[in-house]
């Protein structure tokens, strides 16, 4: 079970959150092309390793929490608020992966 450090509430159990997918996607401006919206809506990478994701803290403060997480080891590197900029770490995950 994951423990996720909500920037507002502190570390909480995974069950308090709703996974909301890829947080690297930025919604295009309203006048952007259909292709840009198609990409935003449907196109997703499925990275093995570090990834930035949304975990909505529905059971707590109801903030959309940005989480840098390793999809292979489940290690959480950093969390931040909805507008935070969280670069991916250069290091390997714990356990050498």
């Amino acid at each position, binding site marked *: 079970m994951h423990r996720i450090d909500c920037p507002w509430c502190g570390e909480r159990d995974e069950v308090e959150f709703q996974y909301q997918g890829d947080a690297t996607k930025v919604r295009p401006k309203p006048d952007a092309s*259909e292709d840009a919206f198609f990409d935003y809506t449907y196109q997703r990478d499925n990275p093995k390793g570090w990834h930035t994701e949304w975990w909505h803290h529905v059971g707590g403060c109801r903030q959309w929490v940005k989480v840098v997480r390793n999809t292979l080891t489940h290690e959480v590197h950093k969390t931040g608020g909805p*507008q935070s900029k969280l670069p991916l770490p250069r290091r390997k995950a714990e356990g050498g992966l």
Partner: protein
Amino acid sequence: MTGINRLSMGGTRINRSKQINFTFDGKSYSGFEGDTLASALLAHGVTLMGRSFKYHRPRGCLTAGSEEPNAIVELRIGVRREPNTRATIAELYDGLEASSQNRWPSLKFDVQSVNQLLSPWLTAGFYYKTFMWPAKFWEPIYEKIIRRSAGLGRAAVEADPDTYEHSHAHCDVLVVGAGPAGLAAALSAAHTGARVMLMEEQAAAGGMVSTLLDEIDGMPASEWVDSAMAELAAMSNVTIMTRTTVFGYYDHNVLAALERVNDHVSTPQENQPRQRMWTIRAKEVVLACGSHERALTFDNNDMPGVMLSCAVRAFVERFGVTPGKRVVICTNNDDGYKTALALNMAGVDVALVADARIGSIPAANEVRAKGIRVETGMLPQKAHGAHTTSALSLQRADGSFVEKIDCDCIAVSGGYSPDVHLVSQTGVAPLWDDELLGFVPDIPKRRERSAGAGKGSFNLSACLTDGHDAGLDAVKAAGLKSGKASAAPKASRVEMTPPLAVWRCPGNGKAFVDFQNDVTAKDIHLAHQEGFKSVEHAKRYTTLGMATDQGKTSNVTGIALLATARGEAIPDVGTTRFRPPYSPVAIGAFAGHERGMEFQPVRRTAIHECGEKLGAVFVETGQWLRPQYYPKPGEGVMEAIYRESKQVRETAGICDVSTLGKIEIFGEDAGEFLNRLYINGWKMLAPGKARYGLMLREDGYVFDDGTTSRLADDHYFMTTTTANAARVLAHMEHASQVLWPDLDVQFCSATEQWCGVAVAGPNARKILQAAFYDDLDMSDEALPFMGVRTFTWGGTTARIFRISFSGELAFEVNVPWSMGEGMWNAIWEAGQDHGLIPYGTEALSVLRIEKGHVAGNELDGRTTAADMGLGKMMSYKKPFIGQKMAAREGMVDAGRATLVGLKLKETEGRLRGGAHLVVDKDNANAETSLGWVTSVCYSPAVGCWIGLAYLKGGLGKFEGQTLYAVNPLYDEAPAVEVCSAHFFDPKGERLNG
């Protein structure tokens, strides 16, 4: 003395002053408080405790702990019957009723043991081979044979009468196992002030210490264990839990444990759960899980009376029971000598210690000095006996027979395997240690460290130092101050001789590796011959290690034999990965409280009881309970729905609409925010007015609909469908926090602040005016269609909305929750002169279908606004979520299925939701389907069955035509006429009353 094999002295865990009576297979016995079922049976000389899984061979207990593969019994009778319980950990209580499994008609005479004659069939892969035979024989023949001949226990048929619960814990250091290493770790960590939890699977601490032989800190080991436990118990920063098995090690250092609160009594104490499942969030973990002794693999090594060396010692030391009167010990390591000394001290005859090793063995000298015969370079060849051991043949390593020796117990030791289950669960692949002949933990991936025998420290002094250091290391790793560390407990260091690898003692008979799944050395060889060379494949093909004991005593031997067959070294073969749970966990424990009434929480509205009083039948809508219909005495469902929906249009009805999602929206940019959420425009909506709104998902499909009102310039009040309330709130939070944080908009749910009712029908105004007579002007001028007003009623704020789902003159009134019942009663009383009736969700649905209004059935996530006939609502003057994708080619295709009405053309039968529409009912298939029926009802207003449907080509192509609504589930295909979805009052004249 209770039983012929009960020793006159000793037994650290039993209380000889308290006798306990129990039965096994209907026969009465007695034991002492503190006994396990196995120790109490052994005390009476009962060695036969079960039959094996496949071959139904007689079996006794192999171990004295939870790793027991053989002595699997059923406990209790009736509803509390529990199969697959290990006799070695089942604590005796007065009145315990236990019975053996896998035998018919009796344990002594089991007809299925003819399976032994059929054993060529039942070798490795017998499941797979069986199921490859002709399919038509599977169910009627093979499955029955397999089910009867192989299986483990019977579950109770009735519902479990006991309760289970969950509990949550947090600590700095979790210590798993209260053997010497675990106790030392708990002590050193606790002395620093860290919050320590110590969990021990057994009822008592001490693990594998020998109470007769070992000394710690200058006192007998058992005394040291007691004092350590007492010291820990007295510390406020320590929580000790015995009878608690840590069975799962999950991500982020979360562990799960099962506390057996009341398994050692016949019936749980009143109000106490039987078991409690713990979720532990540990900063750091010390794994002091100990090790499992392995058996030696020789012919008939599963004979009752053959027992692990440490188990023999445990029965003597803990329970004052000897498993036999004359014992032969076969060993490949020093453990056999320890057992010989313990038996000798307890006055039990040790006929021989046969050591597979040769050369100088210091431990042997001490045993010889006691006058016990020791032979080196000697291996067991074959156990003899009928249902229990009577003799053992011995051989040299080359297979040459040496002698046959009479005995009733054979204590065997094939070396020790560190218990790496929990480490393995964390994804660490254990490392092979060629000197210890066992897998040891590799570098941790989680915040854990192993200590003691669990990491391969088999020497007591090393265990204690190890544990002590691990406790301090954990405290340090947790970032806590270690302060002044206490001294490590000490034991004298014993010189040990490394074990000798003996994986198969020469022989051609049945030599078992996995006792529980009846896997023999030959099976493993066969699996290899048939091509199952990977350890994971061989495991599944032979079922080695796949039974409830998870192969605790058998895995290493199995892997070693596979390595031999492959001609490779053990590390090259590797080991299988262990997965949770460590030992079996009852499903009831996983469920905890979450069953029956507490399966999931129920939401009730403020006026639930008002509906109840009027005889409402309730329906679950998500977690909410809503009145579905209000049957009168003698009335059926259909009649009640018909009456309710007819009456609303004739006089008036009242309906509980509290479950609609309600969201209060504030802020300067609230109007702009709504503009971006909904497809239609909101900035021009005047305060005091409501508007119907439709939201899309980003992919352009319809998400939700509802009415939103403007209560003040910067204050809106949104309603959502009951089903989507939570999703809409999350969608809005995404929009405001992630997409447009620059907008000044704030909102929160107010669903439970308000109780809402809809009052609909020609008499609605009259009734409400009477109910709120001097508080509210209900005139058309003061409250026009889509008008909203806030008024004070009964001292509180109330809101009234003139909106209509039914097409009638209708209002929705909201008052604070606590006033809901008062409001209902006021309206109800006022309505008595005006034909007011209550109506439920079914009549509500009839009324909206008659008006062609979409609801959940039509909002199925695959439909566009245009599909619903609401395409014109889409504003082109402003951007909104879903706009771009809704304009894509496929979304605006003219051939899309769009909303139409249907009337049943036949006088018999009915329409059903889910039916597919076709032109030719004799050629109905996926290709010829033109669409599907979403909602149906019998319409009092139209006078027949009607429905809503999505139809390719829609009204434009099919209006007035006849199609067939095919429903293969019911074998029906009634004729329907396609018509406008606005069945009733298409011009909307009735909205004015």
